[in-house]
């Protein structure tokens, strides 16, 4: 482990971290603007050009708000929960390749923080750890609505994790590797969305459920639960939950791009540009969904996860296995 490697890793960690921290305000702005226009409004437009600085202003406002902690709350866990949410989202991004190798100072630098040979399991593992942030936040608040939101989310995320994992397994069967960089490398001639279209649909649906976005945003269903798991959170702790939700959207999109859409591959433009373009399209899709669909009922959500998505992903896996075995 030489010094150059350490410096290289540190720089890459800072780049990814900075990208997420700067990207999230942009996504929030994009979400408000797009939803605004979809609902025949204009969205934010006062702060900065096109309202671009609106989310920065909101962030500063959240920084200076009073930090309220409920009297009966479990203080340590109450502090820990939002941090857990954010950490798991950031850590998951460390294995996503966002570009081809580049040469810096005569050194070949692969553009991902770490090429782990179990990258997909790493992403699934860290996102499954993300449940803790929400469940514990709901529990530590010691209040009814947050607890209900937290319990809903744990049930929801565990249910959808299964189908999500299995949908990825069918791609792993085709590639024979768990490394995201390896999977991207094998999509030189064809993106895996073509042979694995159903796996992609299942993965995306589960990804939306995992990030608690509409139409699967039951943990924070405001019409039933006030604000769900983060009802009691204010100030920067609330902002951390907000940050984690958008960072998780980035994780799901980045994994979907790497596994099904050829990662950073694309003609003419540099690889990083392609990655960013695909990422923006995915994030737009997330926003589009939120503006379009009403929230599911809780029993519908569970039935959909266990009775539709899980059998569908298993069927897809079985068919893939047969085809892979026959064609070698």
């Amino acid at each position, binding site marked *: 482990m030489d010094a150059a490697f350490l410096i290289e890793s540190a720089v890459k960690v800072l780049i990814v971290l900075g990208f997420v921290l700067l990207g999230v305000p942009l996504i929030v702005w994009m979400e408000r603007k797009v939803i605004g226009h979809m609902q025949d409004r204009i969205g934010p437009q006062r702060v900065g050009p096109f309202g671009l600085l609106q989310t920065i202003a909101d962030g500063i406002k959240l920084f200076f708000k009073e930090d309220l902690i409920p009297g009966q709350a479990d203080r340590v866990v109450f502090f820990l929960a939002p941090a857990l949410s954010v950490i798991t989202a950031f850590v998951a991004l460390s294995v996503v390749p966002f570009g081809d190798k580049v040469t810096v100072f005569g050194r070949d630098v692969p553009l991902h923080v770490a090429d782990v040979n179990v990258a997909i399991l790493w992403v699934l*593992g860290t996102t499954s*750890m993300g449940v803790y942030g929400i469940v514990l936040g709901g529990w530590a608040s010691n209040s009814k609505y947050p607890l209900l939101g937290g319990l809903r989310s744990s049930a929801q995320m565990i249910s959808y994790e299964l189908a999500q994992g299995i949908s990825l397994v069918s791609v792993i069967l085709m590639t024979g590797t768990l490394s995201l960089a390896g999977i991207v490398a094998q999509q030189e001639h064809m993106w895996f969305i073509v042979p694995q279209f159903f796996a992609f649909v299942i993965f995306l649906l589960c990804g939306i459920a995992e990030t608690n976005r509409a139409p699967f945003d039951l943990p924070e269903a405001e019409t039933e639960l006030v604000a769900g798991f983060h009802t009691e959170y204010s100030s920067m702790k609330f902002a951390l939950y907000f940050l984690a939700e958008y960072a998780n959207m980035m994780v799901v999109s980045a994994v979907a791009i790497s596994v099904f859409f050829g990662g950073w591959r694309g003609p003419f433009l540099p690889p990083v540009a392609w990655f960013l373009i695909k990422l923006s399209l995915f994030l737009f899709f997330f926003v589009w969904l939120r503006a379009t669909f009403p929230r599911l009922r809780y029993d519908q959500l569970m039935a959909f996860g266990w009775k539709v998505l899980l059998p569908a992903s298993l069927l897809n896996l079985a068919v893939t296995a047969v085809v892979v075995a026959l064609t070698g």
Partner: protein
Amino acid sequence: MGEAILFTLFSLSAVAFALGMVFRRNAVHCALHLVGVLLSLSGMFVLLHAQFIAAIQILVYAGAIMVLFLFVVMLLNVKGETPLLTPGAAKGFGFFFAFIAFVELLWIVVSQGGTEGEPAPVPALPPNFGSPAEIGKILYTTWLFPFEVTSILLMIAVVGAVVLAKRKFA
């Protein structure tokens, strides 16, 4: 050097979390400490070149099983449960089992560590040691029978759970 530092770090945190798990009164805190133990162990697995096991440890134990534990603890809302034994009896049992464990460990140390001189050299790892492909190969060749038996066992557990859960509505 780096490995030694990491090993110390992970083992210390594992022991600290384990102690916390035993001594905390609040069931949710205990569960969280157990998650800490599992995460530290997963770090150790990485140091042992078993990345697959490390990832599975996080994904299955820390990410799924412990979430269900937590789920149950929160739903049942266990606060001050009535102790099964009187404090004196509990202490007696504790000392008894601790003594047995101590004798057992002592026995292992005495019987294994008795040889003089240098410890045996660590054999070189085969290539791809601990990679998912290698583990898969071993599971489906050498250990096929235990592997399949485990899967049947889990199947039985699933069917049992469904039967037990359904009985209420019959």
